[in-house]
Protein backbone atom coordinates (compact mmCIF):
# COMPACT_ATOMS: atom_id res chain seq x y z
CA UNK A 1 0.00 0.00 0.00
CA UNK A 2 1.94 2.94 -1.23
CA UNK A 3 0.47 6.33 -0.71
CA UNK A 4 2.85 8.09 -3.03
CA UNK A 5 1.55 6.16 -5.98
CA UNK A 6 -1.99 6.76 -4.78
CA UNK A 7 -1.47 10.49 -4.80
CA UNK A 8 0.21 10.25 -8.19
CA UNK A 9 -2.80 8.40 -9.55
CA UNK A 10 -5.23 10.93 -8.14
CA UNK A 11 -3.00 13.68 -9.53
CA UNK A 12 -3.12 12.07 -12.93
CA UNK A 13 -6.91 11.80 -12.78
CA UNK A 14 -7.13 15.41 -11.76
CA UNK A 15 -4.89 16.61 -14.57
CA UNK A 16 -6.72 14.56 -17.13
CA UNK A 17 -10.00 15.97 -15.92
CA UNK A 18 -8.56 19.50 -16.00
CA UNK A 19 -7.46 19.16 -19.57
CA UNK A 20 -10.37 17.39 -21.16
CA UNK A 21 -13.45 18.75 -19.46
CA UNK A 22 -15.63 21.29 -21.22
CA UNK A 23 -17.67 22.28 -18.24
CA UNK A 24 -16.41 25.04 -15.99
CA UNK A 25 -17.61 23.29 -12.87
CA UNK A 26 -15.77 20.09 -13.74
CA UNK A 27 -12.59 22.11 -14.31
CA UNK A 28 -12.91 23.51 -10.85
CA UNK A 29 -13.52 20.12 -9.34
CA UNK A 30 -10.37 18.84 -11.02
CA UNK A 31 -8.40 21.63 -9.41
CA UNK A 32 -9.75 20.55 -6.04
CA UNK A 33 -8.77 16.99 -6.81
CA UNK A 34 -5.20 18.03 -7.60
CA UNK A 35 -5.04 19.84 -4.27
CA UNK A 36 -6.33 16.73 -2.50
CA UNK A 37 -3.69 14.64 -4.20
CA UNK A 38 -0.88 16.97 -3.13
CA UNK A 39 -1.94 17.19 0.49
CA UNK A 40 -2.54 13.43 0.61
CA UNK A 41 1.05 12.95 -0.38
CA UNK A 42 2.40 15.22 2.32
CA UNK A 43 0.24 14.03 5.15
CA UNK A 44 0.68 10.33 4.58
CA UNK A 45 4.41 10.63 4.12
CA UNK A 46 5.01 12.19 7.48
CA UNK A 47 2.23 10.97 9.69
CA UNK A 48 3.05 7.31 9.36
CA UNK A 49 6.36 8.16 11.01
CA UNK A 50 4.64 10.14 13.71
CA UNK A 51 5.91 13.55 12.61
CA UNK A 52 3.43 16.42 12.55
CA UNK A 53 4.97 18.27 9.62
CA UNK A 54 2.54 17.06 6.99
CA UNK A 55 -0.47 18.08 9.03
CA UNK A 56 0.94 21.54 9.30
CA UNK A 57 1.29 21.65 5.54
CA UNK A 58 -2.25 20.50 5.17
CA UNK A 59 -3.56 23.25 7.37
CA UNK A 60 -1.67 25.94 5.55
CA UNK A 61 -2.10 24.70 2.01
CA UNK A 62 -5.71 23.72 2.36
CA UNK A 63 -6.85 26.97 3.86
CA UNK A 64 -5.02 28.85 1.14
CA UNK A 65 -6.57 26.60 -1.43
CA UNK A 66 -10.03 27.28 -0.06
CA UNK A 67 -9.52 31.01 -0.28
CA UNK A 68 -8.31 30.61 -3.84
CA UNK A 69 -11.36 28.50 -4.59
CA UNK A 70 -13.59 31.28 -3.37
CA UNK A 71 -12.02 33.71 -5.79
CA UNK A 72 -12.12 31.24 -8.65
CA UNK A 73 -15.75 30.41 -8.05
CA UNK A 74 -16.62 34.05 -8.07
CA UNK A 75 -14.93 34.44 -11.44
CA UNK A 76 -16.65 31.37 -12.80
CA UNK A 77 -20.06 32.61 -11.73
CA UNK A 78 -19.46 35.95 -13.39
CA UNK A 79 -18.26 34.35 -16.59
CA UNK A 80 -21.17 31.96 -16.82
CA UNK A 81 -23.63 34.72 -16.12
CA UNK A 82 -22.05 36.94 -18.73
CA UNK A 83 -22.03 34.40 -21.49
CA UNK A 84 -25.09 32.48 -20.42
CA UNK A 85 -23.52 29.08 -20.49
CA UNK A 86 -21.09 26.98 -18.50
CA UNK A 87 -19.50 25.31 -21.45
CA UNK A 88 -16.04 26.42 -22.48
CA UNK A 89 -16.37 25.91 -26.21
CA UNK A 90 -19.67 27.78 -26.29
CA UNK A 91 -18.09 30.65 -24.43
CA UNK A 92 -15.13 30.75 -26.79
CA UNK A 93 -17.54 30.89 -29.73
CA UNK A 94 -19.34 33.86 -28.26
CA UNK A 95 -16.07 35.62 -27.45
CA UNK A 96 -14.83 35.06 -30.98
CA UNK A 97 -18.01 36.52 -32.37
CA UNK A 98 -17.74 39.54 -30.09
CA UNK A 99 -14.18 40.18 -31.09
CA UNK A 100 -15.19 39.98 -34.72
CA UNK A 101 -17.84 42.60 -34.09
CA UNK A 102 -15.31 44.83 -32.32
CA UNK A 103 -12.93 44.60 -35.22
CA UNK A 104 -15.60 45.42 -37.73
CA UNK A 105 -16.49 48.50 -35.78
Amino acid at each position, binding site marked *: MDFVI*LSLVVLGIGIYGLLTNRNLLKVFISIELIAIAATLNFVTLTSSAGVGLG*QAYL*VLAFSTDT*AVSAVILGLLVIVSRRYGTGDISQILKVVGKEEGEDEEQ
Partner: protein
Amino acid sequence: MILEILTIGLIISACLALFLDDAVYSVAALAATFLFTALIYALDGAVFAAIFQFAVGVGTLTILFLSGELLSERAVKKTSSSKAFGLIGAGVVLSLPALFLSISGATSAGVSINFGDALWSLNGMDVILQGLVILTVALGIVIVLYERRNSGK
Protein backbone atom coordinates in the same frame (compact mmCIF):
# COMPACT_ATOMS: atom_id res chain seq x y z
CA MET B 1 -7.47 -4.05 4.86
CA ILE B 2 -9.53 -0.98 5.59
CA LEU B 3 -6.92 1.19 4.02
CA GLU B 4 -7.17 -0.70 0.77
CA ILE B 5 -10.90 -0.30 0.67
CA LEU B 6 -10.61 3.34 1.40
CA THR B 7 -8.09 3.68 -1.39
CA ILE B 8 -10.31 2.04 -3.93
CA GLY B 9 -13.25 4.14 -2.80
CA LEU B 10 -11.17 7.28 -3.11
CA ILE B 11 -10.19 6.66 -6.66
CA ILE B 12 -13.64 5.57 -7.71
CA SER B 13 -15.23 8.66 -6.32
CA ALA B 14 -12.55 10.81 -7.98
CA CYS B 15 -13.37 9.36 -11.36
CA LEU B 16 -17.04 9.75 -10.76
CA ALA B 17 -16.64 13.34 -9.66
CA LEU B 18 -15.07 14.27 -12.90
CA PHE B 19 -17.11 12.51 -15.43
CA LEU B 20 -20.69 12.39 -14.24
CA ASP B 21 -22.86 14.74 -16.19
CA ASP B 22 -25.25 15.93 -13.53
CA ALA B 23 -23.81 18.71 -11.42
CA VAL B 24 -25.24 17.57 -8.13
CA TYR B 25 -23.98 14.04 -8.49
CA SER B 26 -20.58 15.31 -9.42
CA VAL B 27 -20.31 17.44 -6.34
CA ALA B 28 -21.58 14.61 -4.20
CA ALA B 29 -18.80 12.44 -5.54
CA LEU B 30 -16.33 15.16 -4.61
CA ALA B 31 -17.76 15.14 -1.11
CA ALA B 32 -17.18 11.40 -0.98
CA THR B 33 -13.58 12.00 -2.07
CA PHE B 34 -13.05 14.41 0.77
CA LEU B 35 -14.57 11.92 3.18
CA PHE B 36 -12.36 9.06 2.05
CA THR B 37 -9.18 11.11 2.31
CA ALA B 38 -10.20 12.26 5.77
CA LEU B 39 -10.63 8.68 6.82
CA ILE B 40 -7.21 7.76 5.39
CA TYR B 41 -5.66 10.59 7.39
CA ALA B 42 -7.42 9.47 10.54
CA LEU B 43 -6.28 5.89 10.13
CA ASP B 44 -2.71 7.05 9.64
CA GLY B 45 -2.73 8.96 12.87
CA ALA B 46 -3.23 12.48 11.58
CA VAL B 47 -6.57 13.08 13.25
CA PHE B 48 -6.26 16.84 13.34
CA ALA B 49 -5.66 16.89 9.61
CA ALA B 50 -8.70 14.69 9.01
CA ILE B 51 -11.08 16.85 10.97
CA PHE B 52 -9.63 20.03 9.52
CA GLN B 53 -9.93 18.83 5.95
CA PHE B 54 -13.46 17.71 6.36
CA ALA B 55 -14.56 20.84 8.12
CA VAL B 56 -13.06 23.19 5.59
CA GLY B 57 -14.08 20.95 2.74
CA VAL B 58 -17.67 21.19 3.82
CA GLY B 59 -17.56 24.89 3.23
CA THR B 60 -16.20 24.46 -0.29
CA LEU B 61 -18.76 21.83 -1.03
CA THR B 62 -21.60 24.04 0.10
CA ILE B 63 -20.66 26.76 -2.31
CA LEU B 64 -20.15 24.22 -5.03
CA PHE B 65 -23.61 22.82 -4.52
CA LEU B 66 -25.14 26.24 -4.71
CA SER B 67 -23.29 27.35 -7.78
CA GLY B 68 -23.37 24.00 -9.44
CA GLU B 69 -26.68 24.66 -11.07
CA LEU B 70 -25.45 27.92 -12.46
CA LEU B 71 -22.33 26.47 -13.94
CA SER B 72 -23.67 23.34 -15.48
CA GLU B 73 -24.73 23.00 -19.06
CA ARG B 74 -28.22 23.80 -20.16
CA ALA B 75 -29.18 20.52 -21.73
CA VAL B 76 -28.49 18.09 -18.94
CA LYS B 77 -28.72 14.58 -20.08
CA LYS B 78 -29.19 11.88 -17.57
CA THR B 79 -26.13 9.82 -16.98
CA SER B 80 -26.61 6.42 -18.40
CA SER B 81 -25.97 3.74 -15.87
CA SER B 82 -23.56 2.05 -18.18
CA LYS B 83 -21.39 5.11 -18.07
CA ALA B 84 -21.52 5.09 -14.30
CA PHE B 85 -20.51 1.48 -14.09
CA GLY B 86 -17.78 2.08 -16.64
CA LEU B 87 -16.38 4.81 -14.45
CA ILE B 88 -16.48 2.60 -11.39
CA GLY B 89 -14.61 -0.09 -13.24
CA ALA B 90 -12.01 2.39 -14.43
CA GLY B 91 -11.61 3.53 -10.84
CA VAL B 92 -10.96 0.02 -9.63
CA VAL B 93 -8.40 -0.54 -12.33
CA LEU B 94 -6.62 2.70 -11.56
CA SER B 95 -6.35 1.91 -7.89
CA LEU B 96 -4.52 -1.32 -8.47
CA PRO B 97 -1.05 0.23 -8.87
CA ALA B 98 -1.45 2.06 -5.58
CA LEU B 99 -2.35 -1.11 -3.81
CA PHE B 100 0.30 -3.37 -5.08
CA LEU B 101 3.27 -1.36 -6.23
CA SER B 102 5.65 0.65 -4.16
CA ILE B 103 8.34 3.16 -4.93
CA SER B 104 11.54 2.34 -3.16
CA GLY B 105 13.16 4.86 -0.91
CA ALA B 106 10.12 6.90 -0.14
CA THR B 107 10.31 6.79 3.64
CA SER B 108 9.30 9.36 6.14
CA ALA B 109 10.78 12.75 6.62
CA GLY B 110 13.65 12.27 9.03
CA VAL B 111 13.38 15.56 10.84
CA SER B 112 11.07 15.69 13.79
CA ILE B 113 9.52 19.08 14.11
CA ASN B 114 6.56 19.57 16.31
CA PHE B 115 3.29 20.67 14.90
CA GLY B 116 3.17 24.15 16.32
CA ASP B 117 6.62 24.99 15.00
CA ALA B 118 5.84 23.65 11.58
CA LEU B 119 2.57 25.48 11.43
CA TRP B 120 3.77 28.86 12.43
CA SER B 121 7.44 29.54 12.55
CA LEU B 122 8.31 27.76 9.33
CA ASN B 123 5.43 28.79 7.21
CA GLY B 124 3.66 31.66 8.89
CA MET B 125 5.20 34.26 6.63
CA ASP B 126 4.36 32.18 3.59
CA VAL B 127 0.70 32.02 4.55
CA ILE B 128 0.52 35.72 5.17
CA LEU B 129 2.00 36.47 1.78
CA GLN B 130 -0.34 34.08 0.06
CA GLY B 131 -3.23 35.64 1.87
CA LEU B 132 -2.16 39.04 0.63
CA VAL B 133 -2.01 37.73 -2.92
CA ILE B 134 -5.49 36.34 -2.69
CA LEU B 135 -6.81 39.51 -1.16
CA THR B 136 -5.25 41.51 -3.96
CA VAL B 137 -6.79 39.30 -6.60
CA ALA B 138 -10.19 39.56 -4.97
CA LEU B 139 -9.90 43.31 -4.74
CA GLY B 140 -8.88 43.47 -8.36
CA ILE B 141 -11.91 41.52 -9.40
CA VAL B 142 -14.17 43.73 -7.37
CA ILE B 143 -12.70 46.81 -8.97
CA VAL B 144 -13.03 45.38 -12.46
CA LEU B 145 -16.64 44.49 -11.80
CA TYR B 146 -17.33 47.90 -10.37
CA GLU B 147 -15.93 49.59 -13.42
CA ARG B 148 -17.82 47.32 -15.79
CA ARG B 149 -20.98 48.00 -13.95
CA ASN B 150 -20.45 51.73 -14.15
CA SER B 151 -19.37 51.76 -17.75
CA GLY B 152 -22.08 49.33 -18.75
CA LYS B 153 -24.71 51.73 -17.55
